[in-house]
């Protein structure tokens, strides 16, 4: 259970930052509104990813599946930041 917990905790945090960053870079909304939207979305995403991590039957699968979602999101971050 601890391994699944860390998978959700670490990848969930990274994924929440990454997804919110993508939104921030893609949507043409004023800065303070975007920060608020980011704040409203980030914590539920983090907690939701953790719940998803716990739903796998073993920790290895949890790490793998969560990472598979994180990697494309981080790649999009990199592309969007380089185009900025």
């Amino acid at each position, binding site marked *: *259970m601890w391994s*699944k*917990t860390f998978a*959700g905790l670490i990848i969930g*945090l990274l994924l929440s*930052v990454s997804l*919110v*960053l993508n939104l*921030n870079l893609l949507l043409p909304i*004023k*800065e*303070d*509104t975007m*920060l*608020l939207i*980011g*704040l*409203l979305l*980030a*914590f*539920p995403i*983090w*907690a*939701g990813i*953790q*719940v998803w991590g*716990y*739903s*796998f*039957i073993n920790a290895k699968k949890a790490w793998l599946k969560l990472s598979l979602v994180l990697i494309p999101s981080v790649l999009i*971050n990199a592309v969007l*930041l380089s185009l900025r």
Partner: protein
Amino acid sequence: MNKDSLKALTNAHAWVGLVISTILFIIFFAGSISLFRDDINAWELNPHFAVNEQSENLSLDSVINTVAKEYSINTHGYFILSMPSAEQPLANLYFEEKLSGDEHVDQHLILAPNGKIIGNGNGSNWGDFLYELHYDLHIPEVGLYFVGIVSLFFFVALLSGVVIHWRKIISKFFQYRKEGKKDKLLDAHNLIGVMGLPFHIMYAFSGLVFNLLIIYQISYAVVLYGGDQSKLLTAAGVVDVHLDETKIVMPVQGLDNLYLTAKASLGEVSINRVSIDHFGDESASITFRGADKSQFSTRKEATYHIASGRVLYLTKDNFDNDLRGGLAVISSLHFGDFAGYLIRVLFFILGIGTCYIILTGNLMWIQKKANLRAEKQNQLGLKVVYAMTTGGFIGTIFASAIGFIFARAIPIDYIGRSDLIAYIFFGCLFTAIAVSLNIKAQKQFAAIFLKITAVALAITPVLDWLFVSQGIIAMLKVGYYHVIVVEMMLLSLALFCWLIASRLFVNRRVEVDNTIGDALNIPVQEQTLLN
């Protein structure tokens, strides 16, 4: 969702709930009481400094003259005046008094509506103690983040609970089976959990925002603003009105005029906080802060340079920033400060209901593990969970009850009063946990301990009328009911504890104790004696 996933999630829900249960119980119990924090602070202080007048027109210049004559105020320290209001007749002044060299001491003075100093409030912060227990457990430095992580896992437990219960969420909405012991616990857990779901989600989310915002603040600053924290803060609506110190000494005066100017500029506002930066220096500025009670969660603020009267900053709408406005809304929801006592009473009931959810969750886990075959049981784990449930949960309520008793019984001018009450609180809590670790008949112990706690909670209102009845009556005459509010809260908690002791822990006591006794390998003869 397939069966395996659902099973994995159910196990995780139970595991997460169990791991965070004791801390979450403390957070929710202290938080529920802290909804009445201002009332508790007024309950503790006001009867000792009863006034027979109501005034919202405190002269700031007169206060400053009086305080500056008696104390050497630290220019580099804080200076905050909490204004009297329709809810609070006394003003509270907090500042740093300069001693010798770089040394300074925190001061808290109580002021009458006419601005006269009538007492020292340094030792009376029982309401603040409970509030701090709620948000950082009194753990220096890391307590805030620790509570944040617990809030995150509370959020996880909520979401996983919704997923697990999703298919029955409508069909079994009102289900409450009184007959079966396990069914009763499960139904109570689900019923309160589902009915209070929006409230629980709001608390998990807002708790996270208050305690772990720093994580996203750092992330955003690094990724979006190239590590420049000040750029992020500017975008987030944090306004820097700080003036550099000139080291030219200048008396602080003309504040009453600035107060009137601020009131006129801010429009509909109830100014509840006045703060001065660089007290006594030519660069000193004053900030008036308040809320517009006619609107939901609208904060207003005005800052003036005292010497020239120049406006340094003025906002009539949450710092004119969406993020600050959003945070103000989250804050109003969390503290229930937008609809008078009614909403706080509702939040209090839901908060105590959450404590009951945590309790039933632990009891279900204990029952499930106790019913396993001996070779599958982790006896130490079972004992620890049981001890944390009885000692930790009931111990928290008991320690709070004792704290209230001492907050009333110890003389208000006793030096080291607040520290003493804090030691008593933690002494009671840790003793309760230690005792419950060494008790075998846990159900019986829980029932007796809860009844003792109920009596302890009911003692405080008696002490109120024995010790400070004149002060209470004087405050009631001018329309301040804080003491009655706190007494009602304590008596309702006492009733709640008594009912739990009578209904949850006593029924089928022998049967359940035997189950636990079997689980802990206590011989049958010994169990009979214990029962």
